[in-house]
């Protein structure tokens, strides 16, 4: 019998994910060169690395706006609503009862989405303040660097967990197919996302 696939992520959702992911890696790489003394010495070219970092950040924000503007906004609004709402099963699931049936997103994925969105805002605001602060003292706060760095550390931890679940952990790594090709196996969906009706 041929394997049956169901659609999990729309093209708009996947584009948003990969815009965010690729920008994150470029920003992380250039940011570490600016931040880790030994890397700074090795790579040098700080003014250029700063430009890479700042322009990637601008391109990242612009690309997100663009994808939302030309993409399937109605679908995104529906997704946002799904991510926002935690029902009784979700709340029990969060207490590590991972047998509770889940929708298209499990409760952990919903939380990850909320954190990722909040971090995006905080990265953008703190990064913008660092840029402005170099030009105008009114935008200079002693804690901006601390916030930007702290977000980086927490993001790294989240990223490692995310990559582990998406690439390595056998039970969940099939989800990667949903984020690349858009579809997942029906039997996998029924096992991991029982309440989702594709």
């Amino acid at each position, binding site marked *: 019998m041929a394997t049956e696939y169901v659609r999990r992520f729309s093209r708009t959702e996947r584009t948003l994910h990969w815009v965010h992911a690729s920008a994150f890696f470029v920003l992380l790489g250039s940011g570490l060169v600016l931040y880790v003394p030994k890397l700074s010495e090795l790579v040098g070219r700080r003014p250029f690395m700063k430009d890479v970092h700042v322009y990637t950040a601008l391109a990242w924000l612009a690309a997100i706006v663009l994808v939302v503007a030309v993409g399937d906004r109605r679908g995104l609004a529906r997704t946002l609503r799904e991510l926002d709402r935690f029902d009784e099963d979700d709340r029990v699931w969060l207490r590590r009862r991972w047998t509770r049936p889940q929708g298209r997103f499990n409760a952990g994925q919903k939380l990850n989405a909320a954190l990722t969105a909040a971090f995006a805002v905080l990265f953008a605001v703190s990064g913008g303040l660092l840029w402005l602060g170099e030009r105008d003292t009114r935008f*200079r706060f002693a*804690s*901006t660097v601390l916030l930007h760095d702290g977000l980086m550390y927490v993001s790294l931890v989240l990223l490692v967990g995310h990559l582990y679940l998406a690439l390595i952990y056998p039970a969940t790594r099939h989800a990667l197919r949903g984020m690349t090709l858009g579809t997942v196996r029906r039997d996998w969906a029924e096992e991991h996302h029982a309440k989702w009706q594709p």
Partner: protein
Amino acid sequence: MDAGRDTRGDERTYGRRAFLGVTLVGLSSLFWGKSAWNAFSGVASGVSSALPPGLIPSGWRIYTVADTMPTFHPATWRLRIDGLVERPRTLTYEELRSLPRAEQISNFHCVTGWSVDHVHWGGVRFRDLLASAGGAKPNARVLTFVSAEKPYVDSLTLRQAELHDVMLAYEMDGKPLPREHGAPVRVVIPDMYGYKNVKWVERIVVGDTASPGYWEQRGYDVDAWVGRSNGY
């Protein structure tokens, strides 16, 4: 499948609450982050000293303005001291190291908000350095530090340079000054932000007026007192 059960009645909007909560805590940390971090790192310093070195970042960030850091060659390196001094001269690294040696432990503050506490510096006081060039002339007011990292330059008044904890440092934490910290010599003035602590100094011009330094041409204060300048 549980699809038949209607659970919409007890849905809670945790998603937006998590988003807003984290965003607000993050934004508010702009106002309390540094003091909280200082309190925390006081407690954590015992823990971090027990961990292998390098695991916890030292706190230093390396700021440069040119594409590559200057490279120090002990045999060919020279420090030029000229302008309003009695006997302008050029020192070799050996000659500089043979001048009266001073040591200090001081804190380092960057204008962007990070600090490194208890840095152990070794070097020479400016009074002794200028004495090696016959001393400053009576009308001398300002020392201008020219970095080998072009076009970085900054200055201190003679009075500031002769404060008790100001030096031209050639050692840091017991070792020759590392390349990324300005090898072989940098200015250390703990009471002023890092951009006055010029790295890779290759020439000191003694003059009667200051011209704005690299960051001062970009809007930063000439007198960069920690906590009392640059909008703090």
